[in-house]
């Protein structure tokens, strides 16, 4: 069962599946049943983790359709390799590792800028579906512009810094989990994170999207 704090940002909290007794099965329980041939249990895992995995793939490679393909391929590979999952790591960490490997392959194969440029225009009619009763259309437009600015700034980061920030900021992994995933020392993770955040802070401030403007707006 993934902790709630694992997905603090990006609305990628995994879905929970509740048994007939009202108790949600843990990932480990579902994995065990899946290894016994219960496809429904594996599909529960898919349902629980497809959003976070898709969000991770999207933030790393920046393309919706390709992120969708990576997400699907992640679960396909996980299903095929389920017999080799020994449980030393969390199931979610195992999925993240598969996803990051697929993203790395995708980036290497595409040989292009990993994160796509944000669209120039803002379609208000599309945005209207995202607005809340307490949010004006101006705030909505500002939020979308800010989102695109962050996306562009993240695209400019080196891969290792961007990955560290994504895993920490948007998926809430611990430093140790990130270090294990990226096969690097703990201190390296923190350094990459700090350097990446510093660059982002500078770029967003240069684009007029710094935290001060956000604070003033809200």
């Amino acid at each position: 069962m993934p902790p709630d704090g694992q997905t603090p940002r990006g609305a990628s909290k995994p879905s929970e599946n509740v048994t007939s007794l009202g108790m949600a099965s843990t990932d480990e329980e579902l994995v065990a049943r899946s290894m016994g041939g219960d496809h429904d249990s594996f599909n529960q895992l898919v349902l629980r983790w497809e959003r976070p995995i898709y969000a991770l793939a999207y933030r790393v490679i920046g393309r919706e359709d390709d992120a969708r393909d990576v997400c699907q391929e992640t679960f396909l590979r996980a299903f095929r390799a389920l017999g080799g999952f020994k449980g030393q790591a969390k199931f979610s960490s195992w999925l993240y590792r598969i996803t990051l490997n697929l993203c790395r392959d995708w980036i290497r194969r595409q040989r292009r800028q990993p994160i796509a440029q944000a669209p120039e225009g803002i379609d208000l009619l599309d945005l209207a579906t995202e607005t809340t009763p307490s949010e004006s259309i101006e705030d909505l437009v500002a939020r979308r512009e800010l989102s695109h600015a962050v996306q562009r700034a993240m695209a400019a980061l080196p891969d290792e810094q961007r990955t560290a920030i994504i895993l920490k900021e948007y998926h809430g992994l611990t430093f140790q989990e990130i270090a294990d995933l990226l096969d690097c020392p703990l201190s390296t993770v923190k350094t990459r994170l700090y350097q990446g955040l510093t660059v982002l802070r500078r770029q967003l401030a240069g684009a007029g999207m710094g935290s001060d403007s956000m604070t003033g707006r809200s």
Partner: protein
Amino acid sequence: MKCDREQLISYLYDDVSADERAAFDRHLRDCADCREELAALRGLRSTLSAWTPPQPALAFEIVDTRAPARTLTETRTVTPMRPARTASWRAWWTPAAGLAAAAVLVLAAASAIAHVELRYGADGFSVRTGWNGSPATTTAAALVAPAAAPDQTKKLEAAYADVERRIRDLETATHNAALPSPVRPVSQITPARGSDAEVLARVRDLLSQSESRQQRELALRIAQVVRDMDAQRTADLSRIQQGLGRIDAMTTADAAAHRELANYVISSTRQQK
């Protein structure tokens, strides 16, 4: 405590032990730079939260394509189900209803036409309705006439010749009866009555043959009408499709214009503010 960026990052994400937290709290009280940087990074985290990924319909599902053992061969994406039942029912019903209606109309017209006979022959133009005919006779003719047509023609020619001869005999007999001579040979009249029955039989044969021919022509006409209606239906559907395409294009263009206008209004409003 010396400024430690790693400690700052750990403190920022609350990924520290209680002792480390207490130590860094003490450091923050004495270090304005770290306080300022910590505040800036917290603001940056707030900004980063604005980047949200799309929310597509995923619903991935592992399916077993009934391979032996538990080998996965494919995945599929479950998309919202369309009202397939309604759509397929309509798709089936529309052409069927059209064809059925066309068939009913054709049969109704054919049944009405079948009771009217238009003839133009050696004896001139004539109109006859089938309502006065005998159904049994008509049916028998429809079944027999096609096979007996060549022989019937010769028989009819002979019958006509016989009828003409009899008529001439009758005219002669009538003419003779009108003469002053009171003698009327009975032998000249009796055979004539027997020939009338034969003539009526011949006439029935003739009518039966005519009706059979009409039925064949009617069948051909019905087939032609069905073909014409089908072609017309196809052409109508094509025109409707073209019309829908034009309407769709116009609707899309209007929507795009409205979107541009809305974006322009919002942009103008924001600039004014």
